[in-house]
């Protein structure tokens, strides 16, 4: 493999946002995740939990609650508006004012005809769902306290709403509250404070289940308005509840980070009478669990520790398989770091600003694993803040380091960067073509003469760059006319070819010399997660969400021989079991047989001249090879050279001077900046 000097970068102070709400669309198997910074992410649960789309957030517009209605996604927050998102253009489509103050919760009825919103002023507003929008129909009887949670009865005729100190059951037709379920306050000092009903569920047999700030999960008979059973689950708050589709299992998320399961079972064997019995407890989080979803096979939770955890229920899945392992999604599935290979610069993308850093220099050589003395420290050159409330959704840095671009949902900013030994200057390109108003993917050509921006409906706008000007040359469109957004964009080294991939798993290759569509890669069922053109042969290398690898020859319009051999042999089981996607692929210009790629926990150099591993070979064999004498090594080597020395990798790239850059974000650094967790007394601490 050879020896490389590695720039180990830990100064990217990336901080993910806490998860505030989850919503699962059973038909499309898409999970929507709302974060406290206002961003909404869409994960495809049927494609290895790949993060397909990210709708950027906005200052002071954070979603408190999400709701799917068929294929439409609605969110509402403390700004008092219900927003519908445009999932094709990744931005809000329309907003409706509720006139009830901040909105704490929304929910759709099973029929998909009405949407209810629980407001700060104590009203539940009912909206009629129409084709293009939602229309306020009526308000239910006003309550004294704010409405923090609500749940529709499956029939759509009744609604349960959690407020301060009580739960109200409403008749939707008349708008009147029919039952009042009084929730006990906590003991001791808590008696002086109102108890908050954070979450409520209304089941088809008229059972109401509530979770409150006194740490109780209570089971009520919604028909008579009486309390059946109380379970004291935690000393802190029960923040979220979720029920399975068949209503046999309910899960409760607490401030301690635990998820407690209740199942509707006969309490003793042989008995016909069933009741809600506490069964399992999962401790998947270190901080408060604020959102929960109960799918058919798993418990999905998210909260203040920013991690999305999928915990399969072992009685629903086959044990000891890929399906049964717990998944923790920590980092975004698209790169936030761009590297200028020739200039040795790094661009870090945050939601509200960009940072441009120059890498440091070291001297001398060393043995593998040794740290080299630093001659020059890495330097932050530019700290560029966004203007306005909208968050940055994409950015790019040219290979020479001379051009920098970023986009929000309403504007694009392009800058010329001039670096000399001691000075840095940033000049904004003021007059941009009108068509360059927003792009969720941006990419520069290798020679920095062109800028490519993803537009609506999988189109790509091509711009030419000169000293201080940017001109629109052409717009490339795919044949399929897909309305889905592009999530990957790459250009070949010689500037001849452009590849664009969208969330419909379509990869289109365009010829930049003729500005025409060249070919479409055969559609593979799993979405591509990274792609790059080989610098010499111009083959398009792609990785997919299911960890498959493929190499497509653009000239021949078919997969390469190597790719076919790989498909025939099959990838090593340990490679396929990896639970984080490959987010970046690059090559070594001095060694055309090498492919460099990485995921969150490893980076890998694939040597196409070496034999492919079969399922019996040891995949992670680098340590073993090092211990062997040199004559023996060739016999045991295979193509995949994996290094696991670095953790939480956000970027892995090769600079022009043959040194590697690894940007790490240690989890402990993130954890130390999270909000306060609850104080738990643990044995021996």
């Amino acid at each position, binding site marked *: 493999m050879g020896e490389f000097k590695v720039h180990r970068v830990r100064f990217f102070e990336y901080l993910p946002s806490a998860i505030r709400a989850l919503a699962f669309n059973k038909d499309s198997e898409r999970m929507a995740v709302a974060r406290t910074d206002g961003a909404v992410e869409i994960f495809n649960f049927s494609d290895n939990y790949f993060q397909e789309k990210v709708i950027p957030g906005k200052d002071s517009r954070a979603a408190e609650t999400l709701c799917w209605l068929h294929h439409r996604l609605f969110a509402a927050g403390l700004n008092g508006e219900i927003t519908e998102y445009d999932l094709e253009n990744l931005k809000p489509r329309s907003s409706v004012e509720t006139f009830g103050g901040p909105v704490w919760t929304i929910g759709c009825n099973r029929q998909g005809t009405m949407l209810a919103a629980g407001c700060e002023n104590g009203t539940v507003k009912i909206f009629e769902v129409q084709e293009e929008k939602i229309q306020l129909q009526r308000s239910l009887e006003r309550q004294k306290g*704010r409405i923090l949670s609500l749940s529709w009865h499956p029939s759509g005729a009744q609604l349960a709403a959690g407020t301060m100190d009580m739960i109200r059951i409403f008749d939707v037709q008349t708008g009147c509250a029919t039952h009042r379920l009084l929730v006990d306050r906590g003991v001791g000092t808590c008696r002086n404070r109102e108890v908050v009903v954070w979450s409520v569920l209304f089941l088809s047999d008229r059972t109401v289940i509530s979770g409150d700030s006194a740490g109780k999960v209570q089971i009520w008979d919604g028909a008579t308005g009486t309390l059946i059973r109380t379970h004291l689950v935690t000393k802190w708050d029960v923040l979220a509840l979720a029920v399975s589709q068949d209503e046999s299992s309910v899960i409760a998320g607490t401030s301690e980070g635990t998820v407690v399961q209740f199942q509707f079972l006969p309490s003793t064997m042989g008995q016909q009478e069933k009741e809600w019995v506490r069964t399992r407890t999962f401790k998947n989080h270190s901080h408060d669990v604020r959102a929960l979803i109960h799918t058919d096979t798993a418990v999905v939770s998210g909260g203040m520790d920013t991690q999305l955890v999928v915990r399969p229920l072992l009685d629903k899945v086959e044990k000891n398989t890929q399906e049964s392992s717990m998944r923790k999604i920590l980092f975004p599935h698209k790169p936030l770091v761009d590297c200028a290979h020739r200039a040795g610069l790094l661009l870090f993308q945050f939601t509200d600003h960009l940072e441009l850093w120059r890498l440091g220099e070291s001297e001398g050589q060393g043995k593998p694993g040794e740290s080299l003395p630093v001659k020059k420290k890495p330097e932050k050159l530019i700290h560029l803040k966004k203007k306005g409330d909208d968050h940055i959704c994409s950015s790019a840095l040219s290979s020479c380091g001379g051009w920098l671009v970023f986009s929000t949902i309403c504007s694009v900013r392009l800058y010329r960067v001039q670096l000399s030994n001691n000075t840095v200057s940033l000049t904004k390109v003021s007059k941009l073509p009108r068509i360059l108003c927003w792009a969720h993917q941006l990419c520069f050509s290798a020679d920095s003469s062109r800028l490519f921006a993803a537009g609506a409906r999988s189109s790509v706008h091509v711009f030419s760059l000169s000293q201080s000007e940017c001109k629109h040359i052409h717009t490339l469109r795919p044949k399929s006319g897909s309305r889905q957004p592009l999530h990957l964009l790459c250009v070949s080294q010689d500037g001849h070819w452009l590849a664009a991939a969208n969330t419909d798993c379509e990869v289109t290759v365009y010829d930049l010399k003729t500005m025409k569509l060249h070919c479409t890669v055969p559609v593979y069922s799993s979405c591509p997660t990274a792609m790059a053109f080989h610098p010499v042969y111009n083959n398009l290398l792609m990785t997919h969400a299911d960890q498959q690898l493929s190499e497509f020859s653009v000239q021949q319009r078919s997969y390469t021989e190597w790719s076919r051999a790989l498909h025939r042999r099959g990838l090593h089981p340990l490679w396929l079991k990896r639970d984080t996607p490959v987010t970046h692929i690059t090559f070594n210009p001095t060694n055309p047989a090498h492919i460099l790629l990485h995921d969150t926990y490893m980076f890998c150099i694939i040597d196409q001249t070496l034999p492919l591993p079969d399922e019996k070979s040891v995949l992670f064999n680098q340590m073993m090879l090092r211990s062997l004498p040199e004559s023996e090594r060739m016999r045991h080597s295979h193509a995949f050279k994996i290094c696991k020395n670095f953790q939480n990798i956000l970027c892995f790239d090769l600079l022009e001077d043959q040194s590697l850059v690894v940007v790490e974000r240690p989890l402990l650094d993130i*954890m130390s900046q999270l909000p306060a*967790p609850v104080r738990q007394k643990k044995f021996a601490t």
Partner: protein
Amino acid sequence: HTCTCKCVNTYELYCSKSFSITLTWLAVSLFVKKEAEMSSFSLNSSDDEAPEEVTFEESKSDALRCLKETLNTVRREKEQLKEKRRRRQELFQEQKVVFLFLSGFILEEDDWFYLTTSCFVSLKGNYKVATLKEDTAASYQQRAAQDFIQSRLYGPGSCRTTSEFLIGASCHRRV
């Protein structure tokens, strides 16, 4: 004459200019008449001396002079009042600008981002006022809601520790 002037001043306060002039004339003519009467009285009563010869022209010019003086005084006072009002208005405008500035509005000449017509304040000079953030009842409610959540989850009685403590505890347990 002093009496006449006093009379005029009192009238000026309550009446319009033209009216006051008419009244002044009346007052003057009455007074002159009265004076004449009074002089005749004094003639009849005790003195044998002949009355002072005061021609109509003289008294007319006196009255006119007096009138002019009072009109000038009135005009001066009016102007003073006007000046006072103008200065007060200017002071209020300046105070308003300072108030807007302190409340988070900024004065910008060219590069202003978003304005609503209701925000326009016409000021002297080439300045326009642009709001940075709308401080409305809605945002007040939003802040109250955020405070509620913050106090319930992180406020007093929430029994929280620090993330560092949590990391330390987990490291300790691993050991």
